[in-house]
């Protein structure tokens, strides 16, 4: 296939473009969607997504197509027309040359993508049974997996450009997720589980299913609590989700340059409590953001972003690095194959402290332990404001769970939470998707409720 990409670059240069870049995602995916413990749809699909960006001096644009059967000249006509209409970007300094030596890192698990259909179905049955097992063992009247599914995906990412970059990486992803509904003594409860990794670890998967399955019993008869100020303990997955949406993008050099980050001008200064250390870590085994190089072909590296509360380093794409006379950090990623890469975390890792969720719970005088939230994506990294609604929480008074909680709104600011309000950072790191975070105990959080 690379001959096609080379041809696009060569032809683009012949047609008058000063630089050309090709970015390709080839994907094959098996999915089994579940409704009421049965497979409602079994899906096999293969796709290709080709993005081509071209520059004429400082004018840059992109085109995207989802097939290999296209007329290269017609495709380039569209690109040239767009490039010529685009005003010059005064900060444009070209596509990157080869930068760094990508480290050998495991991003691909053969096991995930070579199972037979029957083996996937066995895995699906096994995971549903394990998730239900604890509730059934406690004699619930009804336990059913209402929805969910399994997806196994192989992705090949290729980036090539006229500066000599030519890099390819194979990635595997396995997503297993379910919602479990139970009834006991006339009360109803539910719980979700989500396993999202690039490498399948059966023991870890089973542990997660049993642990989350056990928790469903905690939420029978949940209700909102009174409005007020509470201590909250965030389960690792919840902590990761909140950090991703209220904070992560504030470290992007583009957001800082363009006046959309409260971290502007604060590099080298203390922004959080010394309990907080955050790493951009592209080498975490099993995490979905693990990569040897970024979407521009620049080698990735593990780096402290915050060390003991001090803002240490900014995330750069090639564009932002050149614009600010800095070094590219291998954090250029794109939302579409033909889009300009912008700086993002590979994996966001919050360095663990000590202690764990149950221990924090026992030490809570009055607070809410939060296991699941919705709407957290409405949090805002520009201001640091946190918004999330708790669907699964426990009210704890003097170290004892007094009742389950749902339907209350958490509010605050992540910069306050991680500086003056942080009580403890747990040692119980969980990896889900592209976050690796422990439990967090935060004091004085505004809670909207009854």
């Amino acid at each position, binding site marked *: 296939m690379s001959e096609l990409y080379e041809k696009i670059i060569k032809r683009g240069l012949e047609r008058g473009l000063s630089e050309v870049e090709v970015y390709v995602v080839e994907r094959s995916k098996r999915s089994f969607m579940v409704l009421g413990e049965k497979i409602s749809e079994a899906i096999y699909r293969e796709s290709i997504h080709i993005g081509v960006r071209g520059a004429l001096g400082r004018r840059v644009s992109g085109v*995207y197509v989802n097939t290999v059967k296209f007329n290269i000249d017609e495709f380039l006509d569209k690109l040239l027309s*767009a490039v010529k209409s685009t005003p010059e970007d005064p900060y444009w300094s070209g596509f990157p040359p080869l930068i760094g030596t990508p480290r050998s890192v495991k991003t691909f698990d053969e096991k995930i993508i070579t199972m037979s259909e029957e083996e996937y179905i066995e895995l699906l049955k096994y995971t549903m049974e394990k998730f239900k097992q604890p509730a059934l063992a406690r004699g619930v009247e009804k336990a059913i997996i209402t929805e969910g599914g399994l997806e196994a995906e192989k992705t090949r990412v290729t980036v090539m450009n006229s500066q000599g970059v030519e890099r390819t990486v194979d990635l595997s992803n396995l997503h297993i997720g379910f919602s479990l509904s139970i009834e006991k003594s006339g009360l109803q409860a539910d719980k979700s589980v989500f396993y999202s990794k690039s490498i399948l670890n059966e023991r870890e998967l089973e542990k997660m299913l049993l642990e989350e399955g056990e928790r469903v019993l905690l939420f029978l008869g949940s209700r909102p609590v009174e409005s007020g100020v509470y201590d909250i303990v965030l389960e690792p997955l919840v902590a990761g989700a909140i950090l991703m949406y209220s904070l992560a993008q504030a470290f992007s050099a583009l957001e800082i340059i363009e006046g959309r980050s409260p971290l502007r001008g604060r590099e080298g200064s203390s922004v959080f409590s010394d309990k907080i250390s955050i790493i951009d870590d592209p080498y975490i085994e099993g995490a979905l953001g693990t990569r040897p190089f970024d979407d521009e072909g620049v080698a990735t590296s593990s780096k402290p972003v915050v060390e003991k509360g001090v803002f240490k380093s900014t995330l750069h794409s090639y564009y932002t690095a050149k614009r600010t006379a800095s070094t590219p950090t291998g954090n250029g990623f794109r939302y579409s194959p033909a889009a300009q890469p912008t700086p993002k975390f590979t994996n966001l890792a919050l360095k663990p402290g000590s202690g764990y969720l149950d221990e924090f719970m026992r030490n809570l005088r009055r607070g809410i332990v939060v296991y699941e939230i919705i*709407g957290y994506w409405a949090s805002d990294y520009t201001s640091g404001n946190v918004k999330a609604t708790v669907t699964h929480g426990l009210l704890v008074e003097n170290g004892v769970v007094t009742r389950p909680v749902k339907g209350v709104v958490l509010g605050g600011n992540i910069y306050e939470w991680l500086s003056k309000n942080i009580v403890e950072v747990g040692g119980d790191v969980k990896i889900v998707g592209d976050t690796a975070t422990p439990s967090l105990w935060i004091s004085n959080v505004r809670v909207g409720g009854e």
Partner: protein
Amino acid sequence: MSIEPEFISKLSCELGVDFIDVRVQKRYYELIVFDNGVIRDLIMTTSFGAGVRVVVDGSTGYSSTNTVTRESIREAVIRAYKVAKASKSLSLRTELYKRPTIKAKISSQYSVEPENIDYAEKIQLLRDMYSVARSTQGISSVILRFGYEHDYRVYITSIGDYVEVGSRMIGVSSTLTAHVEGVYETFYDQESAVAGWEFIKSINWDEWVFERSKLVVETAKSHHVKPGKYDIILDNDMVGLLLHEAFGHATEGDLVMSGGSVLYGRIGERVASELVTVVDNGVIEGGAFVPYDDEGTPKRKVYTVRNGVLTGYLHSLSTAVALSSEPTGNARVMSFEYPLLVRQTNTYMEPRDWSVEELIRDTKRGLYVKGRGARGGEVNTLTGAFTFTSGPSYIIENGELVKLVKSVMLSGLILETLKNVDAVAKDLVVKTSVFGGCGKSGQIVRVGDGGPHVRVRGFIIGGG
């Protein structure tokens, strides 16, 4: 195109399957992102392909291809057939509602083809808006987007259906950031329509972005509202969000039949105040354009709640059978590569008789919750908890708007919240967006939502 029902029917006989359908799609999407005076992205996206579904012995398999020829469709059908057969041991038995065969062709209305307008003109529009926004004191960042989508879909089945639907959507959005006295505030808004370039010409965009620039600067200086329970008046945008999250998702037939919705088995029960009537309608002014769903079923106007009583769910051909109902035209896919899900189209509340002024005047203490700048919502249909955010809003005291406050997050419970509606206005407005839509199981589809202004007593508010 060389794919006709006869070809699909022949394939069906050849393989001995119950049913085959094919969704062919050609989509063109144009996006221009103007970030602080620089074109960050100018992207033209073209995608083309076909998705197939095969039902064999009640088991359902899907596959897709990005070349649409008889040979590639045949190969995709065989792949779908194989995965359907392989999953039979754990498969949900699919039975499809037998509706009359449909042959139809329809396209949304437009006057001026946006693809014929020069990029330079589109960029100039954003450049002018940028100048206006940037000159507003306190604005630290301006991102403007132009979006245009032409989505053409053909639905073909082994039993003779052939339905062609074309839709054009266009719009402009802004993400404005203010930095005032050390405080950052961001505000997103957009204006879209099912239309052509004439929609862009119908709006004074300089005025549009100026109003929003002033608002975000004012909001940066405002305070958070104290968390707690409030009497609220929701504006047109917010009512749409509320209904979409609080009721819409829980009425989706696939969630209902799996036991994943708190509304399961509640047809005929009171779930809202008698003032509340909720509609799902495929074609309405201001909304998304869904005259037929992705199973070729004509989208009909569905009352999910009528005068406070739950009266129906949204259905595909399979959920209609599973729940002993009729298809409503709500089976949709994001693109040809994806499987069908039951989705909303345009969700809104039917208007009543209050004027907006009367509603505000009649409210002693509360919050006027505005949707401009809202970031959407989410629901857990099992737990019944839902949430959604607002834009900058206003405190009401003694029937008057007295103070601007920052955006809030609202939370409620499906079976309780709408019982507290005590007044519904007469100003129905429905809106859609070319920049986003509703997400479910990894698929985003274009939707519309709205309603008249509505007052709800005792709503939980917090966030920020």
